[in-house]
């Protein structure tokens, strides 16, 4: 009787361990599900997408001219709102780069700043750093570098010094870069883009619009194949 009893707790512990392991494996397999706290966001996005085929039509214009790659006449225009300090924006970057490589001049990629300053204290400076580089015609070089080195400058104690190093690396006039970064023009351009994002009611970064329709993050932006399917069907619809 006593022996039986001492085995029961061990059996329970073993069972819980097995269930936990099976649960973990199933959960892992179900893949990168969107986290619960974003559920509301996703449904608003879906609603936006369903209601408005052109969610950007009435949005504030943003910085003029916008930073864009690809011809203005391209049949596909992807407008991305991003924050350089956001890990998933860095994760989306290879996706958008690959799409640009695959489709070339058929795709125009427009970049908009949407720094989430509440949770990313260095994002606003980062956005201004790319704008300052842009004043010396090297916006995309700085944009790429900030994503590539995200881990380094986001954890750095002096991110501005780090930006100055990057400026030197891509061959900018560093003194001019430093002044521009803290100047009015860069702040105004970033704010204008942010305002455009707000008026388009985006709720998270990265957010992207394909010919004015907001893409769903989980199903249309999570990897190159997913976005490629969207681009293909948009091209066929033309």
């Amino acid at each position, binding site marked *: 009787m006593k022996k039986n009893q001492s085995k029961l707790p061990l059996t329970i512990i073993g069972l819980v361990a097995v269930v936990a392991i099976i*649960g973990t494996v199933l959960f892992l397999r179900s893949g*990168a599900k969107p986290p619960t706290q974003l559920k509301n*966001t996703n449904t608003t996005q879906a609603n936006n997408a369903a209601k408005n085929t052109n969610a950007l039509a009435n949005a504030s214009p943003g910085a003029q001219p916008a930073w864009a790659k690809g011809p203005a006449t391209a049949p596909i225009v992807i407008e991305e709102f991003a924050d350089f300090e956001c890990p998933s924006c860095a994760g989306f970057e290879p996706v958008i780069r690959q799409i640009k490589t695959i489709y070339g001049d058929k795709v125009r990629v427009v970049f908009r700043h949407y720094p989430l300053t509440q*949770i990313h204290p260095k994002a606003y400076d980062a956005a201004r750093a790319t704008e300052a580089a842009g004043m010396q015609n090297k916006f995309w070089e700085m944009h790429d570098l900030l994503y590539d080195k995200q881990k380094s400058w986001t954890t750095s104690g002096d991110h501005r010094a780090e930006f100055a190093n990057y400026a030197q690396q891509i061959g900018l006039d560093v003194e001019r870069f430093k002044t521009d970064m803290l100047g009015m023009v860069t702040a105004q351009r970033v704010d204008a883009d942010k305002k455009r994002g707000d008026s388009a009611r985006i709720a998270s*970064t990265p*957010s992207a619009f394909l010919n004015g329709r907001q893409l769903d993050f989980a199903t249309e932006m999570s990897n190159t194949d997913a976005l490629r399917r969207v681009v293909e069907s948009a091209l066929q619809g033309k």
Partner: protein
Amino acid sequence: MNADENLESKNADKIRILPLIAALVAIAGMIDAIYLTVKHYTGEKVPCSVTGGCETVLSSEYSEIGGIPLALFGVLAYFTVFSLATLAAFGDDRMWKILSVIVALMAVFSLWLLYLQAFVIGAFCQFCLLSAGTTLTLFLLVIIRQFLPKKLS
């Protein structure tokens, strides 16, 4: 006198309530920690929400020790606590003593993590807060049982 004796003999094969509650709380903590661990490995492409701070907290330099996500340590800790609590619920009081020490350490660590979120990272993560809640509940149970008469606990 007779009644007293009766109670004692009953206690011997009765499930102890506080350790049982502790076991259930530990399971809740374990599920939360498993969720966070899985998210750590697959969560690369979780979008940053304007309102939440999960992404910031879970991708901060404090989210790993030597490349192992903190949440995984959490899973192991909660499982250990669950096991000890289960054994204690069946009457093994030595296990409860070990549990008390572990839970005290976990509580201190939880406070440290709360401090990091509030003052260093500057963002809170709701699932991390839930974990702090379960740990502090466990700690509370340990304290309550300490001061409760043996027969009642």
